């Protein structure tokens, strides 16, 4: 088998070889130390070693799913002995049988069928024609679609997979700059937890005992603010560099109105599916999780009407769904196991001591909490972060006299950042699981930093001007 060697012959193998050696020795030393010393290490150094071993193992090219699970296993055995191992198995079992995650394969399947039929392509052809001469117009349309999608999905995984399978290849086909296309999909797709319904806010509400309806109202403006920031960035970037988001060619723009209207047919089917899903949620027909299943049924029907539904196509869609789910769920499995172990190691108390030892102005405490959330967001899944920090943060926030609703929005915005920051960026993983193979994880993360900055801007704005979040629930509740 011929290997696509990327290193030039000139450098030789010694540098990578030395690197591999160094990484393996370092990991072996860490692992040995953890196994021998056990909980004597203490939580401070333990936290560092835990993050360090994740990074070391990642470098070797070991699948992330195995990296996180291996580190969880290592620290479980180190801290609690081999008899602690069932903890990891228990987390795995609970994770795969989590009801909320049932929506993930449904969205993936929906995307897979949309992609294999011509529906997605027709949609984007119509979008291009209607975007006219606007530079970056299709990316902006994709963001608008993402906001609508966000209103029918409470999680991010499914939405990003959907956009990654549909919007990304289409934007690339239309000649869009790769980093703009990737950023649009990851940041836009993450809005699923910023626009209600949002499982992040529901879990936050249940955890912090805060009215979920108020959270849903409060999150709308910040969610739209984020979307507006993304739109503004894309428009400015494409204005400065027309190559980044080329408008439709002149002959398409000169298309007669009748031709343009004919193209709208491509929008009709996706719209009908969106109406079906939205309608089934807001009409009280299906729960948020079940609505994803309505989407699959709608897409299947649409493909059948277009005479594109074949057994081979269905089989391919199903195997791809299996593959994609296998990839993303197993990363989650490892991360979930890690959270259980870390909490048991005393992670909660560790964070608590970091917060309570401060003795500074309330706003600084708040900023410090944001910083902790951002740092944790680099290494953990949002559910783990919520479990770890909410028992500590929420009472402190209330003692300081801040609104827990507003804090919930800040938390959700922090999680937006966490989805796309390396090294543990779920949104990037979701996209990678369906992106064309030539797009590497490194490409994805490299494309995301402008969007991280935009999210941080959004976070700072809502931190400094709480009214942006709070005006709507206050107006509705009349106080």
């Amino acid at each position, binding site marked *: 088998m011929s290997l696509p*060697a990327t290193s030039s012959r000139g450098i030789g193998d010694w540098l990578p070889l030395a690197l591999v050696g160094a990484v393996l020795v370092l990991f072996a030393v860490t692992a040995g130390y953890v196994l021998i010393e056990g909980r004597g290490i203490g939580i401070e150094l333990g936290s560092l070693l835990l993050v360090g071993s994740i990074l070391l193992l990642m470098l070797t*090219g070991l699948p992330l799913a195995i990296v996180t699970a291996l580190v969880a296993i290592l620290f479980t055995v180190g801290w609690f002995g081999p008899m602690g191992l069932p903890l990891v198995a228990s987390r795995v079992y609970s994770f795969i049988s989590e009801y909320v995650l049932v929506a993930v394969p449904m969205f993936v399947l929906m995307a897979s069928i949309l992609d294999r039929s011509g529906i997605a392509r027709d949609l984007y052809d119509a979008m291009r024609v209607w975007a006219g001469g606007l530079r970056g117009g299709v990316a902006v349309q994709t963001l608008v679609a993402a906001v609508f999608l966000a209103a029918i999905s409470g999680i991010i995984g499914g939405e990003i997979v959907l956009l990654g399978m549909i919007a990304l290849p289409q934007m690339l086909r239309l000649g869009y700059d790769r980093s703009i296309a990737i950023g649009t999909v990851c940041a836009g797709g993450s809005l699923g937890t910023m626009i209600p319904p949002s499982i992040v806010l529901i879990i936050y509400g249940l955890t912090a005992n805060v009215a979920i309806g108020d959270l849903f109202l409060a999150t709308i403006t910040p969610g739209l603010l984020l979307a507006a920031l993304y739109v503004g960035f894309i428009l400015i970037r494409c204005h400065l560099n027309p190559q980044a988001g080329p408008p439709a060619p002149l002959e398409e723009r000169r298309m007669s109105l009748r031709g343009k209207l004919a193209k709208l047919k491509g929008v009709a089917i996706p719209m009908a599916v969106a109406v079906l899903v939205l309608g089934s949620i807001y009409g009280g027909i299906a729960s948020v999780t079940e609505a994803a299943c309505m989407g699959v049924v709608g897409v299947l029907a649409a493909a059948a009407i277009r005479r594109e539904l074949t057994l081979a196509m*269905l089989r391919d869609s199903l195997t791809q769904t299996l593959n994609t789910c296998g990839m993303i769920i197993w990363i989650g499995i490892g991360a979930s196991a890690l959270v259980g172990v870390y909490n048991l190691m005393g992670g909660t108390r560790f964070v608590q001591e970091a917060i309570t030892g401060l003795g500074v102005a309330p706003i600084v405490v708040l900023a410090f909490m944001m910083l902790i959330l951002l740092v944790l967001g680099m290494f953990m899944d949002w559910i783990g972060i919520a479990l770890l920090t909410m028992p500590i943060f929420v009472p402190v926030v209330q003692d300081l006299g801040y609104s827990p609703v507003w804090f919930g929005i800040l938390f959700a915005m922090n999680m937006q950042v966490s989805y796309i920051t390396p090294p543990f960026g779920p949104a990037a993983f979701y996209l990678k699981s369906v992106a064309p193979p030539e797009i590497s994880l490194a490409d994805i993360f490299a494309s995301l930093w402008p969007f991280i900055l935009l999210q941080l801007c959004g976070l700072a704005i809502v931190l400094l001007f709480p009214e942006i979040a709070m005006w709507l629930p206050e107006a509705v509740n009349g106080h």
Partner: protein
Amino acid sequence: MPDRASSAAIARHGDQEQADGEAVYDLLADTRPVTALDRRVDRLGRYVGVLFLVAVAISFYEIVMRYAFNAPTIWVHETVIALVAVCYAFGGAFALARDSHIRIGLIRAVAGPRVRKILNVVNAAMALVFAAALGWAAYLMTRKAWISPAGELSLDRSGSAWNPPLPAMIKAGLLVCLVLMGVQALLHLVHWLRDSMGREH
């Protein structure tokens, strides 16, 4: 850019079974050992994937029964969770067979063939440790779900009104998948050891 290039790339990505291990479509393609077991797992995936369709169908049935006939079922939600859980568990082995698990190969990106071979051996060994440890843990968990403290066969049930023994089944399914992944990793290790020792050019 040719018109359907990227969609075609995706299609290729999804239709890996057609490539059947020959095609080099990925920078990381040399990590894919293609053992006979992997091929079999890959083929099995076609059948397991159908479970998703079953989950969609019965969810739809539940929605219709509940909304149109005011007659929600007691079995759909739990069945859907179990179907999806089994798919998730098997998905781990499936992605391992296709070598599609997500990785960040910073060293690999700059490494030549010789170092890559070493990394392949190391990674297969780590995957084996992972599957062995997790498999052992899953065995302990499954044993408790199948055998009561008194030592009798007694399957853990869900405790709902329907009360199916699905928790015991899912746990056993997870164990099977982990054992499968362990054997896969073992065969990968053998493959890469041979590759790095025997077929040195």
